[in-house]
Structures are given as structure tokens and as C-alpha cells.
């Protein structure tokens, strides 16, 4: 994906296993985009996508970054983590499939809806994963 037309990038560091902080970045993304007048319906889609991405970094990765890239006609949420990667992406995209631990499920996550939810609310969805990490780029047209 080219950076042509990128107006602004907002970047967040998302630590692994920090369940107290989980959601802070998405909350900030939502309020930043609300401040520039993004429509409430689109804002909700972006918030859900970034929140699922953020929770995934916290639950499944060794930590990573979440980016909100603002273009004239779209918002791109980019999630980049440091691994361990997703062995079978097709399986991970199946509703209800999850590798989350029991302790994560007790928090209300790990229902196997994270990646399917991100795709459901997106206009474009790209995912690449190796043992060095997972990169997800989700485009929402505005």
C-alpha cells in the first residue's frame, strides 16, 4: 500500500498482556477522529476494528504498534506486532475459532470473533503473518 495522500499518522505502542490499558489506544483513535468530524456510523466501525486489533495485540502477541492513518477519502488502521504469528490464517478467520487462554476468555475475549469482526466492518482487509509477527491493514472508506 503506498503512502500517497497520507495526511496524518497517529501511532500507539501496545504492550502485551496489559489488560488494564487495553482499549486506551482505540479510545484515543476514536476521540481524535470524532474531533475532525468523522461520521458517527463510520467512527463506530473504525472503533470496533481498532479495538479488536488492539485486544489481539494484547492477548496474542509479544507487543506491537497500532497506527491510525488518515487519508482524504479513507482511514487505514494498521496493526503490527512482534510475533509469534498466526500459523493458520484461514482457521483464524473462521468465526468461533480461537486459541485464547481460559484467563483471556474470562475477560470476555477469545470468542473467535476478532479477525472476522475486523473484516466484517472493513472495506479492505489485508493480513500477513510469520513467526516474526503479524501485520494487518484495514481500510475504511470515509
Amino acid at each position, binding site marked *: 500500500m503506498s503512502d500517497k495522500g497520507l495526511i496524518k499518522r497517529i501511532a500507539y505502542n501496545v504492550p502485551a498482556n496489559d*489488560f*488494564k490499558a*487495553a*482499549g486506551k489506544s*482505540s*479510545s484515543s483513535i*476514536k476521540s481524535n477522529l470524532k474531533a475532525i468530524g468523522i461520521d*458517527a456510523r463510520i467512527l*463506530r466501525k473504525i*472503533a*470496533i476494528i481498532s*479495538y*479488536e486489533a488492539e*485486544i489481539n495485540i494484547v492477548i496474542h502477541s509479544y507487543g506491537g504498534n497500532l497506527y491510525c492513518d488518515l487519508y482524504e477519502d479513507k482511514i487505514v488502521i494498521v496493526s503490527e506486532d512482534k510475533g509469534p504469528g498466526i500459523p493458520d490464517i484461514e482457521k483464524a478467520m473462521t468465526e468461533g475459532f480461537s486459541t485464547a487462554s481460559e484467563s483471556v476468555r474470562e*475477560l*470476555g*475475549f*477469545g*470468542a*473467535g*470473533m*476478532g479477525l*472476522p*469482526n475486523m473484516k*466484517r466492518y472493513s472495506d479492505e482487509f489485508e493480513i500477513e503473518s510469520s513467526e516474526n509477527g503479524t501485520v494487518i491493514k484495514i481500510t475504511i472508506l470515509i
Partner: protein
Amino acid sequence: MKFKDIKEILNANILTDNFNEDLEVNYAFASDLMSDVLAYANNDTLLITGLNNPQVIRTAEMMDISIVVLVRGKLPSKETIDLANENLLTIFSTDYIMFKACGLLFEKGMKGLE
């Protein structure tokens, strides 16, 4: 259904500073799975849950949900209540189990999400 009616039907306690008794919500969604809330709910939703951690409030915030009922007498931590207050959310707590809370609201006309 008005917030004040929900409070009365569920014999609920208000846990947050924010409570406008005349606000209304038309649908309810009951789940302990926050990803399911993110998948199926909309902003005109009363969230009924047995979870009481801050992620419930974060989920509501992302969805623009303005009212949450905690069932089974669950009380949230102070940080969860603080987060709800920051986001102008209303939290009720009821001693009813989830099934009974849903049944009582349904009986009085609350609709489930399709």
C-alpha cells in the same frame, strides 16, 4: 424503554454519576462475550452482562452504547466505574441472574436485536 423503567423492572442500583432517567433505549443484547457484542450490537442497545471488568466499558464506548446492566449482583472495580463516568455511561447492577433480567425486560416490551 426509559432508563428509569429499566431500573424499576430490574430493581437495580445505579453505580455511576451519570443517570438520565428519561433517556431511552430500544433494544437489548445479553452476553458475556465482548467480541459478540462488537459483532452484533448497535448504539441503541442496552448491554446486559455478567462481566464487570473495564473491557465491558471499553466495549460500550466503542459501540456508543450508553447503558450497561450488570447481572448476578456483580459490582465493578472503582477503575471500571471511573472509566464509565469518564465516558458518560450509566451502569446498573441487579441481583437477578441474566436469564431472569432478560425475561423481565422482554415481558415489559424490550426488544432483542435481530
